[in-house]
């Protein structure tokens, strides 16, 4: 039986080698499996299937023929010469064996066994155990572990390494330590042929085939042991008896097969003729133009242009776009109104959500034509009217200024006025203690009056009109200077205390005159003796050189020792600096560019401001050099005053402009104010309050708040506070001079209408409602 089986197997292998593609790597395994399988089958068959043999007696000789095969083979060996017979025999044998194998392999579905159940006593069919190894994809594997191709470290923490086909745990094999491994390598000579099997988690010996495969791979041989690269060729169509002797067609050979072609000759001759005539140049050198131009597609410089933008994705419709939106999406009345009021370009969305009960109630799209039209315009790239949107809040453009009411006190109302019989009052001055005002009008009268009462206490009369009056800023002496044509008169007010009077007299007409300067000045100092002097006549008179004109301005140095006078006509100005202690006058400028309008002493430094018609120059008197030229941009400068700190200068002009200069900053004005409607006449900084005033020919006086910070980074704050109206414009002249009271926020303004007004501060609180009703 075993022998027949082996034979059968050998035959079967032959067939499988020829016809089926058996994986060649593990032929022995297959054989082993098959053997066991066959054994089982045949045992079963032998044991149980007697009936089958009975049922198929015809086929039995097939199985018997197996036994005869020996004979046949033997006969084959003996009768090797008779090929055809042998072949036919072989074929028969093959057929038979195929049938027999078919007979075996037909049992794909295992046959059930019918046994009598112990429990019920009934016969039942019992199927054999499924052998999934067979015919399955993983049939070549003999590993019981069926977890598949997974990372085995998943089982690292578990006692088993996987599951077998029945779902039972495959326990982790015991693994020896390193010493065991070493001993194994030493003791077991075959241990080098083992490899670690991941699935089984243990070393498995490699089979002979695997070792052979490794060897082949190492020696670069064909890995398949069964493949013979040097197989002898099988001559299928050549060789003896296989040559073709009969023609395929019996047609005679055509003439053209052997006669040269006339047409070809004509063609060739045409070319030959052309070559001879030179029309065709053979071996013509290839021009560059004729050569094919190749270029590298990828060598081009990348384009500098940005990639075209993808079209924006249209926004997905939301609930608001629905024909039946939820209630909260519907606009309220105010929203609807607001939507209708806003411009089309400003609308957040171009539609208003509307609610329809059903889709069939939705009307036609009313914007259809408009939308198509605008889409057309888009396609044409048609320009539209671009509406310039000004999103600027106008109130934000206005500089943030504090409210005037927070900057009190400043003069608000006219407390009193002193009349000068209608003569123009060109000049006024307030005593340094703020109690007395002296005014000079064009009739030649100089009046002294109290600030707060306005009562004229003393009057002096001079023959010509008064150009300027100015109090001496010193407090230990008390006198003022009156500037007339070619004369400066020094007057002492009445009712002085004896100490002050004596000091003033000693200053203005000293008992011992100081030594005369080496170069006599053009200005003559004439003083009366203290005993002979009275309040009615000037105690000291400075006689300016003849024809020097009316004294336009007198200005004192802060310490009261120097005073400067500007005299002359409109176009010519002569500046004199007089020193009281030395009783000496000098002209600081030998030659002056332009006509000098005004001069000013710097309050802290030995600097001297000189205003010509258009420029203000700053000289250093100690070093005798020009420091700075300020360019106010005014056609004709009329007035100028310097801030008590000395760092800021305001300049007013006949062309209505008022320029504020920060002397540290620039030669250009920091700010230009044009608030007056007519020419500016006078400016004055308050000595202590952060105020300055300007007056103009429009008959108004304007009060400004001017706060100057010690911090160099902060710009001065200029706030217009109040316009004081009350002076009459007479002959085109309005207010001619303004002066502040030194200690109070009171302003003295002298007008061309012969009125000098005192303006006082006040709290103009409105009466409350309850008070107002009570007033009825």
């Amino acid at each position, binding site marked *: 039986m075993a022998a027949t089986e082996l034979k059968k197997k050998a035959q079967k292998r032959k067939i499988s080698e020829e016809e089926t593609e058996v994986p060649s790597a593990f032929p022995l395994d297959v054989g082993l499996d098959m053997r066991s399988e066959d054994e089982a089958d045949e045992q079963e068959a032998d044991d149980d299937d007697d009936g089958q043999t009975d049922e198929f007696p015809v086929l039995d000789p097939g199985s018997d023929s197996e036994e005869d095969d020996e004979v046949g083979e033997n006969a084959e060996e003996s009768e090797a010469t008779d090929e055809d017979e042998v072949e036919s025999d072989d074929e028969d044998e093959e057929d038979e064996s195929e049938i027999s194998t078919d007979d075996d392999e037909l049992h794909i579905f295992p046959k059930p066994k019918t046994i009598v159940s112990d429990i019920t006593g009934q016969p039942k069919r019992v199927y054999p155990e499924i052998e999934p190894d067979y015919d399955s994809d993983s049939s070549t594997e003999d590993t019981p572990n069926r977890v598949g191709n997974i990372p085995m470290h998943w089982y690292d923490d578990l006692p088993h390494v996987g599951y077998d086909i029945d779902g039972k745990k495959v326990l982790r094999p015991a693994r020896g330590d390193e010493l065991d491994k070493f001993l194994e390598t030493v003791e077991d000579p075959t241990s080098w042929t083992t490899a670690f099997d991941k699935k089984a988690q243990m070393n498995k010996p490699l089979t002979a085939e695997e070792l052979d495969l490794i060897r082949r791979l190492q020696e670069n041989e064909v890995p398949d042991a069964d493949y013979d690269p040097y197989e002898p060729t099988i001559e299928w169509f050549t060789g003896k008896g296989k040559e073709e002797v009969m023609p395929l067609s019996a047609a005679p050979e055509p003439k053209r097969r052997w006669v040269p072609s006339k047409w070809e000759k004509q063609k060739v001759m045409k070319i030959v003729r052309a070559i001879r005539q030179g029309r065709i140049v053979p071996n013509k050198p290839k021009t560059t133009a004729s050569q094919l131009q190749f270029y590298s597609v990828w060598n081009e410089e990348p384009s500098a242009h940005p990639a075209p933008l993808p079209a924006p994705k249209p926004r997905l419709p939301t609930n608001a776009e629905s024909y039946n939106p939820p209630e909260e999406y519907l606009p309220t009345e105010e929203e609807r109104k607001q939507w209708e009021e806003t411009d089309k370009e400003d609308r957040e969305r171009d539609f208003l959500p509307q609610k329809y009960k059903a889709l069939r109630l939705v009307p036609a799209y009313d914007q259809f034509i408009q939308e198509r039209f605008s889409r057309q315009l888009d396609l044409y790239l048609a320009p539209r009217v671009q509406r310039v949107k000004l999103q600027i809040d106008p109130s934000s453009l206005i500089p943030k200024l504090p409210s005037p009411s927070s900057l*009190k*006190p400043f003069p608000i*109302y006219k*407390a*009193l*006025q002193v009349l000068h019989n209608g003569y123009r009052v060109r000049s006024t001055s307030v005593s340094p*203690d703020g*109690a007395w005002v002296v005014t000079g009008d064009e009739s030649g009268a100089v009046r002294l009056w109290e600030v*707060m*009462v*306005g*009562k004229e*206490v003393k009057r002096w009369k001079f023959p010509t009109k008064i150009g300027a009056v100015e109090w001496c800023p010193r407090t230990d002496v008390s006198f003022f200077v009156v500037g007339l044509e070619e004369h400066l008169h020094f007057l002492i007010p*009445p*009712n002085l*205390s*004896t*100490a*002050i009077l004596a000091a003033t007299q000693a200053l203005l007409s000293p008992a011992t005159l100081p030594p005369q300067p080496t170069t006599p000045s053009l200005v003559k100092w004439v003083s009366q003796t203290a005993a002979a002097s009275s309040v009615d006549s000037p105690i000291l008179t400075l006689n300016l050189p003849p024809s020097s004109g009316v004294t336009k301005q007198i200005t004192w140095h802060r310490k009261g020792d120097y005073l400067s006078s500007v005299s002359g006509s409109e176009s010519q100005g002569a500046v004199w600096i007089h020193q009281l202690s030395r009783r000496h006058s000098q002209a600081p400028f030998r030659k002056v560019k332009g006509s000098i309008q005004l001069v000013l002493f710097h309050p802290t430094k030995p600097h001297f401001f000189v205003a010509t018609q258009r420029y203000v120059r700053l000289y250093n008197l100690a070093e005798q050099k020009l420091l700075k030229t300020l360019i106010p941009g005014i056609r004709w400068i009329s007035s100028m005053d310097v801030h008590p700190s000395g760092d800021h200068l305001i300049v007013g002009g006949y062309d209505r402009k008022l320029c504020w200069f920060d002397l540290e900053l620039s030669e250009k004005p920091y700010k230009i104010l044009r608030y007056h409607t007519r020419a500016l006449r006078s400016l004055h900084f308050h000595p202590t309050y952060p105020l300055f005033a300007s007056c103009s020919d429009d008959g108004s006086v304007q009060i400004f708040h001017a706060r100057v910070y010690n911090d160099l980074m902060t710009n001065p704050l200029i706030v217009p506070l109040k316009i004081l109206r009350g002076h009459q414009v007479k002959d085109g002249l309005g207010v001619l001079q303004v002066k502040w009271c030194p*200690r*109070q*926020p*009171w302003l003295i303004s002298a007008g061309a209408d012969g009125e000098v007004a005192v303006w*006082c*501060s*006040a*709290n103009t*609180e409105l*009466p409350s409602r*309850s*008070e*107002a*009703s*009570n*007033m*009825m």
Partner: protein
Amino acid sequence: MASTSASPSEISHPVVFTTQTPYPLPSQKFMIPTSWRRYQLSQLVNRALSLPSPIPFDFLVHGEILRGTLTEWCAEKGIGEEEMLEIEYFESVMPPQKMSDLPHEDWVSSVSCALPGHFLTASYDGHLRVFNYSQKLLYTSAVHMAPITSICVIPSSSSASSPTLLASASHDLTARLSTLSCPSDSPDSSVQVQVIASLHLHTASISSVSANSVGSHLLTSSWDDLIGLWDTSVPTTDEVPPEDVDRKKRRKVDEQASRPKRKAPLSVLKSHTARVSRAIFGTSEEAYSCGFDSTIRSWDVENGVCTNTITASAKPFLDLALTQSRTVLAASTDRTVSQYDLRASTASATTPSTATLRHSATPSCIVVPSTSNSSVDTSSEHQLLTGAYDGIVRLWDLRSVKSAVTSFKAWEGTEKTGKKVLSIDWARGIVGVGGEGGVEVWRLGQGGRAIPS
């Protein structure tokens, strides 16, 4: 009886009338139509009392003078219709009547009615003038060589026959004490003014002089920030040496016995930082002063220290008056007369005023009726007169400070702007107004003849 006069459709208000005048109504409830004004109420009182000649009355509701209708008043105060109103009434101030005009050549800086039967005026020409009530100029003399700023009659406790002491302050840095002898039995021409002493302290113009109620002390305020305290006794010799030698020589030459003695102050009150415009006595120990430094200071005269300072913001004060209710009234250049409570603490930087009287021009002088005749009418303790630079003299009632009770314009119709009032005095219902146009005498106050209301 009043409710019968009102038509039934009108809303009425329960009212109880009280008064301190000699015209009391029976204390019963009246139903007054709320549309009534002062005029109707006054008529009601007159009819109810059936006075022989009608007397106008003013009405105080809860201490405030009724200016509109009762409805308006109740709506403003939020008082319901059923609430009982207590209305006090007093005789109205008669419209002021101009009595006489005392012309002056120069401005009059000060006027005094303190002397019965006479007006004393001080002018900017340095002259002191005495008029009697019949406008007759009794005496004139140049007391000062410079403008006089203030005069004050020093009350004396002695008999009326003795000469009255006068104090005058001037721009010439001195104040002077003079005697005014006007024997009541002799004819008016015998009025004589004799300068007996000059007060030497100040180095600037003296702005005011005032005496205390018993006439023992004087206060002078000056532009040099000082206040001088003086007694009124005349020294026998010069307390202050003459200033310059020249005059001494000259004096030795003519050697007059009647030459005014030079007097030194008892003490100097020094605390103001700017010109002092007015210094007055309160009681004998207390004095008050105001100045251009926007402060009102209380002084302990005995020790010469400032005890209290009321600081206003930017209010240079021009004049000061003390009311009987321990408040002080001060006129400032910001066109207000402010009332300050003297008991207010000085903790805050600026003291709020308790009442503010608004003027349309700078108020230059304040006068409250002198305490002597206030015992007669209690209503006058709330009254004051102010004179302003627009020439208008206003009578105010402190119970109703929204607007003046009445006003009159001195030197009417002379000019558009008006002439400045520089001084007023008010005594015995007679107001003397001095200023730019001289002096005018007006009659103002209760007790005049009744005017039909």
